[in-house]
């Protein structure tokens, strides 16, 4: 195992923990995309460029966009409900 591979494995282990530890969903979505970047590095240094290419686009663009839009919609709903209660 090379130094790069060990570093990538460590980054993925830390990143996975960080995603779980993030409390605020908004922050969690961003940490998740950074974790995806770490996974991309992992696939790349383990000589799987095909998987790395899919991972980088899906995890840094595809997934966060959907998560952030869903969060925005939820917040709007909460705000509307609070205004109704008043």
């Amino acid at each position, binding site marked *: 195992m090379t130094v790069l591979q060990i570093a990538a494995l460590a980054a993925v282990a830390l990143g996975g923990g960080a995603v779980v530890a993030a409390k605020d969903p908004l922050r969690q979505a961003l940490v998740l995309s950074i974790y995806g970047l770490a996974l991309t590095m992992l696939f790349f240094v383990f000589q799987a460029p095909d998987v790395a*290419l899919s991972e980088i686009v*899906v995890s840094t663009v595809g997934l966060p966009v959907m998560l952030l839009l*869903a969060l925005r919609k939820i917040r709007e709903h909460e705000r509307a409900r609070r205004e109704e209660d008043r």
Partner: protein
Amino acid sequence: MSRTARLLMFGVGAAGLGVVLVYGLGGIPAFGHYQGVYGRVLDGIGVAQRHATDLVTGLNFDFRAFDTLGEEFILFASVLGIVLILREMRDEHERPRQEEADEHQFAGASSALRALALGLIPSMIALGVYIVVHGQITPGGGFQGGVILATGPLVAFLSGRYLRMKALAPHTIIELGDAAGAMGYALIGLGGLVFVGVFFKNFLPLGIPGHLLSAGQIDVASVAVGLEVSGAFLVGWSEFFDQAILVRPEGDR
């Protein structure tokens, strides 16, 4: 359940998982010592039989093309699900166009950001097309290239112009691309059945390894999947966008 009971249960579970993990990890081959037969066989015949220098794409679109058909329709069905769930409900309505266009030009979208987006849109599309059509030669292929292709119009949204994104990727076009790609991939399989008697058996000329038009059905399948994936992602995203930006509950105008 009390905290101690929960911790106790977690302790028992974690200890069990640890034992099984250590036992299981002890049995796998050493790092870097691949022992599978299938991989070695494919490694030997990939270029010789299928003229594909990227074996991963060759595997996806030729050797195991039938499996990819299933994956293809998983994506197709899940996007269909998104469209169904996020449709405009009876007590909702879309905001008038002009109003929402004004609102979405947020303050952060400076001229510099928009100029950057103007350069990024064509380069993302060019990169996506490149990766789709070179699937059989270099790492990449239909799925990867398709998602990159879909990020082209998405950049228009990032520069604060959601309506421009809709103009760049109209709903009819992306839905058509999604459906035509999925159908095209299935048709390649049927072509094998019609012309050489086996579903997904290659029936196209193989060409010279390393050339743009080579590897028979792999190249064509890559284009079909690229079309389907970029369409699917754009349809899915724009459903989310419509919900988050355009659709309002009744009475909130």
